[in-house]
């Protein structure tokens, strides 16, 4: 397969021929090219069979105009969420032969984006960021004119006393 086979789209075609690392990750497989969104039961069963899924497991991606067709929705599971200790044919993708590939698999490999639930939700992040920023700005605003200093008189240099303006005395 030549390098021209690399396709710059979010739909990966299944790796069915080899798993060696010297070849490009994308191998053209027209068998797995998505078709139209399935409307009838027969179309659904055919699509499930094409992708290697059971008909009850097959759930197409929503028909929202983004052009996914009948490609299956394999859930918000990224590669790092899969078990590290499983016996996979392809350890990098954590995938066995014939298993369907996620629509955005190239983004959710173990060294890229993870879809795991974060300990801190997005709204918490936003809240604490705004809280901290307003506290910082508010303190600056309130204390801008308030000064803090070491209570000591300025240092006396003899060169200032020579001109006669100041005079320096002992106590």
């Amino acid at each position: 397969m030549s390098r021209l086979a690399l396709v710059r789209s979010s739909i990966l075609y299944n790796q069915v021929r080899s798993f060696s690392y010297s070849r490009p990750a994308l191998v053209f497989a027209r068998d797995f090219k998505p078709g139209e969104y399935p409307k009838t039961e027969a179309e659904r069963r055919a699509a499930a069979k094409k992708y290697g899924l059971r008909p009850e497991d097959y759930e197409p991606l929503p028909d929202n105009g983004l052009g996914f067709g009948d490609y299956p929705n394999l859930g918000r599971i990224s590669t790092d969420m899969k078990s590290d200790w499983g016996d996979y044919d392809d350890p990098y993708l954590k995938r066995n032969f014939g298993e369907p590939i996620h629509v955005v698999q190239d983004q959710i490999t173990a060294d890229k984006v993870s879809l795991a639930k974060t300990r801190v939700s997005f709204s918490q992040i936003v809240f604490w960021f705004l809280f901290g920023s307003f506290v910082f700005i508010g303190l600056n605003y309130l204390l801008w004119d308030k000064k803090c200093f070491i209570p000591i008189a300025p240092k006396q240099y003899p060169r200032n006393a020579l001109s006669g303006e100041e005079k320096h005395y002992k106590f």
Partner: protein
Amino acid sequence: MGTGTSQYISTFTESWSNPNVVPSVLDKPKHDSLEGFESGRQERQRKASEEDLYWAKIPPNRRDYCADHLIELQRCRKLNYPFLSKCEHYKHDWDHCQNEDTILRMKEFERERRLLKRDERKRLSEEAAME
């Protein structure tokens, strides 16, 4: 918290609440230096001349009233290098001078502060008398 700490803190809390009682840290004092001293005050002297300081290569920020001791210290260090522990006597003299200078600055600050407070008290009593 003793009186020292509370006094230290009150200098800058008063800079927010009562600013005309706090002396300036950067400018010259407002009151006359000889006010209140019936028998006068001794002037501070430095024995080293400007030429001595020039030849000793003392930087400008060290050309204060302790520069005499500093010249002696540097001379001792130059003569005894690398056995600098032999110059501890001169170093102690210089450090002691710096300490005295700092204490004098603190006393000046406190004097200025008390004079300002006295002025404030007078001002308030005059205002109270006028009403």
